[in-house]
């Protein structure tokens, strides 16, 4: 009862602010558009590729290339859902209405996660289908081994990115601080750490690097990643659990 009341209330909150609509539609549009563009470019490049690159050519993964940018909009969604409460001062009104802070946070996360999952799945399926259309005869089919897993995994990846952002925002409270850490981290730092030899072994345990694995159907030739697709997603899920737990503990202990 109390939890369903909070969920209804959070649903009203999330659909009554403009940022929900623009962050989620930007996620969808950017991921699809950039994925289609890179798919089309890859098709033209294929003839010039080395034999080795052709061997590890992964049409499914290429159609998800737009996620590297699209996930930034998902991060903004996750951060704003939580930190809007703090930047507006609404948190005091909200916690006076729902003093059970665990229930409050759970309700907010549940509503935002379901919405992120719906948009994440739609984004992943649309990016795959439209990306394959660009790839012509290089395309993969949804029935090929591992492809459906990768497409569903893409939707889960986007959902987990949003959840991780919510956890970080619940810890940091400030939207500017949260975005200032998350955006460069996922767009630049994680990529650098994952691709530079010295830090590669640590880098691939970062949430996005590990979670990425589920979208690969054809692994690179000399692949020595110590986890599989679901293992990678599991590592990412652990990061999410840690962030949300941190957010919960701080919310519970802090003065509002």
């Amino acid at each position, binding site marked *: 009862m109390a939890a369903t009341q909070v969920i209804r209330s959070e649903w009203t909150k999330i659909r009554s602010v403009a940022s929900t609509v623009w962050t989620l539609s930007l996620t969808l549009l950017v991921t699809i558009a950039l994925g289609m563009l890179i798919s089309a470019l890859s098709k033209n490049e294929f003839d010039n590729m080395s034999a080795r690159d052709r061997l590890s050519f992964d049409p499914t993964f290429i159609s998800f290339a737009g996620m590297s940018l699209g996930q930034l909009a998902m991060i903004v969604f996750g951060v704003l859902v939580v930190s809007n409460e703090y930047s507006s*001062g609404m948190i005091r009104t909200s916690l006076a209405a729902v003093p059970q802070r665990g229930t409050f946070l759970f309700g907010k996360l549940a509503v935002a996660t379901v919405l992120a999952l719906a948009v994440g799945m739609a984004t992943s399926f649309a990016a795959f289908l439209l990306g394959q259309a660009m790839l012509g005869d290089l395309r993969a089919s949804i029935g090929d081994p591992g492809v459906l897993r990768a497409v569903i995994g893409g939707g889960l990846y986007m959902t987990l990115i949003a959840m991780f952002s919510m956890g970080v925002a619940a810890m940091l409270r400030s939207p500017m601080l949260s975005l200032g850490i998350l955006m460069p981290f996922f767009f630049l730092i994680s990529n650098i750490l994952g691709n530079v030899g010295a830090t590669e072994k640590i880098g691939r345990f970062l949430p996005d690097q590990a979670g990425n694995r589920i979208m690969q159907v054809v692994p690179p030739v000399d692949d020595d990643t110590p986890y599989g697709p679901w293992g990678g997603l599991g590592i990412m899920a652990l990061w999410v659990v840690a962030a949300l737990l941190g957010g919960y503990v701080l919310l519970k202990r802090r003065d509002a």
Partner: protein
Amino acid sequence: MIELEGLTKRYGEKVAVNNLTFTVRPGIVTGFLGPNGAGKSTTMRMMLGLDRPTAGDVRIDGRHYDRLKDPLKYIGALLDAKAVHGGRSAFSHLLCLAQSNGIPRKRVHEVLDTVGLTAVARKKAKGFSLGMGQRLGIAAALLGDPRILMFDEPVNGLDPEGIHWIRTLMKSLAGQGRTVFVSSHLMSEMALTADHLVVIGQGRLLADTSMADFIARNSRSYVRIRTPQPERLLDVLHEAGITAVEAGGGAFEVDGEKPERIGELAAQQQVVLHELSPQQASLEEAFMRLTAGSVEYHAHSGAPAGPQWGNDWKKG
């Protein structure tokens, strides 16, 4: 009913609220008075379970705030009129609060009507004036039809019509038997609305008394006299058993004596009087005397270097 017992809040070394014990009773308006920075808002946040007390206890109708099921039905609070997401409409803001406490949607329309915001219900809150924001906050407080209402500085930023509306509202809520607790830093405002008074300064309880008692005890009435024959006057008064105190500028003050009696005495003894006037110290002065030792931010009373206009309006 709200009961505080030994309520204390410390931020590091600084004590914001120091061992407060008092009870806010139903059926009357209780004024919560103190200079800026006295700890009024901190106390109110602890009452709502937003800040955790360092020591002590607050109970709402005998229970801790976080033990209340659907708390908006027990206690409604206006803490900060800006505690609203600016991008959300007034209606959606109230609806999400109503839903979280199982309050029916039609109640949202009712409170919007009560505070006079029906016409702008679908407008975004960031376009609201201070007064409209204050009304929206009051609508939220009334949402659950609670037995206890709490308002933190409700008249701040309101125009005279809005101030009058809030005073009437608070009195009628108390008249319905509800508990009304309202904070202010203005004694004059409290004198018009409150039946009971709780005064704090630097987090400590300075007074917990009925308004009538406070007025009787603190509004000192005296007679002011000026005369070109001060020695003669003092002799005459002394013989009649009346003590006069020199008040500077050649004037004397006499406590607890009617001007008629002093005038008749002076006439009998043929003492010339230039002034004989009954005086009453204002409640504001009484309040300032009470909190004199505990004002956190003293202004210097000398003339400031810059232009001095509008000082009185800054914090209304």
